[in-house]
C-alpha cells in the first residue's frame, strides 16, 4: 500500500516536493486557513462550554486534511463533506459563522450562499450515508461532459458501513470522477480503528471496488494536498475513481458531549500532539523562509478578529420565526399543511406560549 509523507513530525522535508510547494503565497494561505480553522474550533468549544452553542464536533488536529482538500479542489468541483472538514468548507466560501449557526441548531448554517460552496453538499451527521450521493453527482457530471470531480469525505468508522461500500463498489463500474477521502483519525467515538476493522489499512478497501487506494500522512498538508490533487486530476482526466486514506488523529473528544478519557489513554493523545499538523507545517515554512514571528503575530491578530467577528455575527443572528419550519419543506407548501404553518405562526415567537 503506497504511503506518502513529505514533512515529518518536526517539519523536516524529504522526497521531491510538488510544484505548488514553490508558491510561497499559496503556502502561506494554506497556513492561514489551518490556523483560522483551529481558532474557530477553539471558539466553538468555548461557546459550547459556556452554554452558547449546542453539541459541537471539533476538527482539532485534522486541519491539514480539510486544508489540503480545499486547495486540491477546483471551484467547479463538488465537495461532499463529513462533519469535520471545516477547513475545506471555509476555503470554498462557507462563512465561519455558518459552522456555529449549524451546531447551534439552525438550518441556515447549511444555506451556503457563496460560490463554489453554494453547489457543495452540507455536512452529513448520519455516518457514510452521504458517500453514495457522490455516485449520482458524478454520473450527472459525466452525462453533461463536464470536467468536474467529486470529493466524497468520511471517517474511519464510516468505512464499516454498507453505504460507503456500495459507493466504492459502484464508482469503478462506471469509472466515475470521484475521489473518496477517508480521514482516519484512529477513533470512531470510543472505537479504535483496530477494532473497527480487520483490514490492515483502510486504503485497501479500494481493492474491493477494483480501484486504486493509497495512504497519506494526513497531518502533512503538503503530502495530503499532493496526493489528493493527483487523484483528483486523474479522475478529471477520465482515469476513474480512487480512495485516499489520510492518517491523522482526533485530538479532541468526539464531540463536546463526549469525554474521551473514559476510553482512551491520555498519553496516546499527548503523543499525537507531537504530530500536530500545524506545528510541523509552521516549522517547515519558517525553515523555508516563508514565515516568521512577525507574520505569526499578524496572523494571530487577523485570525482572532475574523473568528471574533464570526462569533459576534452568529450570536447576533436571531432565530428564524417559528413558522420557518415549514418554509423549505417543499418547493411550495402543500395546501394540506397550510393550517399547520398557520397554527405555528399564530402562536407567535418561541417563548410566548410555545
Amino acid at each position: 500500500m503506497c504511503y506518502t509523507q513529505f514533512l515529518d513530525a518536526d517539519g523536516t522535508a524529504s522526497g521531491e516536493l510538488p510544484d505548488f510547494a514553490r508558491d510561497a503565497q499559496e503556502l502561506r494561505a494554506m497556513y492561514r486557513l489551518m490556523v483560522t480553522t483551529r481558532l474557530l474550533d477553539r471558539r466553538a468549544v468555548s461557546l459550547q462550554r459556556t452554554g452558547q452553542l449546542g453539541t459541537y464536533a471539533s476538527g482539532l488536529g485534522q486541519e491539514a486534511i480539510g486544508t489540503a482538500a480545499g486547495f486540491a479542489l477546483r471551484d467547479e468541483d463538488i465537495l461532499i463533506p463529513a462533519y469535520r472538514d471545516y477547513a475545506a468548507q471555509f476555503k470554498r466560501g462557507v462563512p465561519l459563522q455558518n459552522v456555529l449557526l449549524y451546531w447551534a441548531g439552525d438550518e441556515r448554517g447549511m444555506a451556503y450562499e457563496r460560490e463554489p460552496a453554494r453547489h457543495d453538499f452540507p455536512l452529513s451527521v448520519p455516518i457514510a450515508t452521504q458517500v453514495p450521493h457522490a455516485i449520482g453527482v458524478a454520473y450527472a457530471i459525466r452525462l453533461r461532459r463536464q470536467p468536474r470531480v467529486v470529493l466524497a469525505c468520511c471517517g474511519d468508522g464510516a468505512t464499516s458501513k454498507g453505504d460507503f461500500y456500495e459507493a466504492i463498489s459502484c464508482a469503478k463500474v462506471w469509472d466515475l470522477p470521484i475521489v473518496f477521502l477517508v480521514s482516519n483519525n484512529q477513533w470512531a467515538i470510543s472505537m479504535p480503528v483496530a477494532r473497527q476493522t480487520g483490514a490492515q489499512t483502510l486504503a485497501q478497501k479500494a481493492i474491493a471496488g477494483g480501484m486504486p487506494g493509497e495512504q497519506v500522512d494526513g497531518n502533512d498538508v503538503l503530502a495530503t494536498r499532493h496526493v489528493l490533487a493527483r487523484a483528483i486530476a486523474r479522475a478529471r482526466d477520465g482515469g476513474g475513481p480512487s480512495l485516499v486514506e489520510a492518517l491523522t488523529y482526533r485530538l479532541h473528544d468526539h464531540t463536546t458531549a463526549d469525554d474521551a478519557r473514559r476510553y482512551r489513554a491520555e498519553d496516546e493523545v499527548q503523543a499525537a500532539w507531537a504530530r500536530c499538523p500545524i506545528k510541523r507545517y509552521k516549522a517547515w515554512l519558517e525553515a523555508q523562509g516563508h514565515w516568521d514571528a512577525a507574520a505569526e503575530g499578524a496572523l494571530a491578530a487577523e485570525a482572532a478578529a475574523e473568528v471574533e467577528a464570526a462569533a459576534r455575527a452568529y450570536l447576533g443572528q436571531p432565530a428564524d420565526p417559528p413558522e420557518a419550519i415549514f418554509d423549505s419543506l417543499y418547493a411550495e407548501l402543500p395546501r394540506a399543511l397550510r393550517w399547520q404553518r398557520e397554527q405555528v405562526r399564530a402562536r407567535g415567537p418561541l417563548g410566548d406560549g410555545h
Partner: protein
Amino acid sequence: MPDLTLIEAVNLAMHSEMARDGDVVVLGEDIGRNGGVFRATVGLLDKFGPERVIDTPLAETLVAAMAIGLSTQGLRPVAEIQFSGFLYPCVDQVVNHAARYRNRTRGRMSCPLVIRAPNGGGIHAPEHHSESLETTFAHMPGLRVVAPSTPARAYGLLLAAIRDPDPVVFLEPTRCYRLFKQPVEDDGEALPLDACFVDREGGDLTLVSWGAMMHDTRQAADRLAEEGIAAEVIDVATLKPLDMDTILASVAKTGRCVIVQEAARAGGWASEISANLAEHGLLSLFAPVMRVSGYDTVMPLARLERAYLPDVERILAEVRKVFEIAPKS
C-alpha cells in the same frame, strides 16, 4: 387513443417525459437491456441510450442514494425498485436525505426524484414481493406518496411526479399491472398531485381506497348499486399530502364511510383518513367509520395470500354493518 394496461401506461409516461425533457433519466436493477422485471422500462434503452437508462448494480440503498445525487444536480431521476419488499433498504436514504435536503439547506438544494416500485400482492409472487409500503413513506415529512389505480391515472400522475420539484414515492399496484386496459392519450398532461379523484358520485355511503384495492372497491360499489345503495367512490391516489377536503365533503353528504386498504391494519393510511374523520367529520357521521384492511400479520406466501387480502365480500360485510347501525332512511 390506444387501450393500455397500467404497466404500459407507466412505460408510456416515461417514454413521453424522457422525450420531452432531456434531464429525465431512469435507473434501477435490470431496467435497461431487460426492460425491467415487470417490463415497465421496455424500449427506453433503445430510444434514449445507456447514459440515460442506467442499469445499476444490485444495491437498493445505492439506487436511492444515486437518485439523490442525480437530482441535486438538476436531473430528474426516476428510480425503479424491483419489488416492494426491497424498498426497505431505501428508507434511510429517502427519509434522512431525499426528504430533507431542501429543508436542511433552507432551499439551496432539492431532490426532484421519483422512486417507482410495485406495491401490494395478489399475483402469487415469491416472498417479499407483495408488501404494501405506502404508510411507511407517507408518515415521513418532505415526501409525496402517489398510488395510482388505473392506466390513465398512472400515466398522468407519473408525469406529475417526474415534474414535481420534490421527492415522490410512486407505488404502482402490482395486481393491476395487466388486470385491465383503458384508453390512455399520450397528451403529456399531468394530473394534480394534491387531489383525490371522485370516481363515482353517490349519496348513501363514501367508499375510500387507493391502488389495487380500488378495483375491489369499484366492484363493491357495483354490487351495492344493484341493491339500491349509491356509493360515492373516492380514489386517494395522491396519498401524501392527503386531500381530506374531498373526503370530508363526501362524508358530509353521505354520513357513512368505509375505507379499504391492502396494507396491514394497524398504523395504515386508512387509520389516518379515519382519524381525520373522527376529528373533522364526526358530527356528520351516522355510523362508525369502518376500515377493511389486510390483517396484522406478515404477508402470507401465495397459497394463503387470498386469506389476507381484502376482497369484495369483506368490503360488503363492513358496509352492511354500517347500514345496520345507520339504515338508509
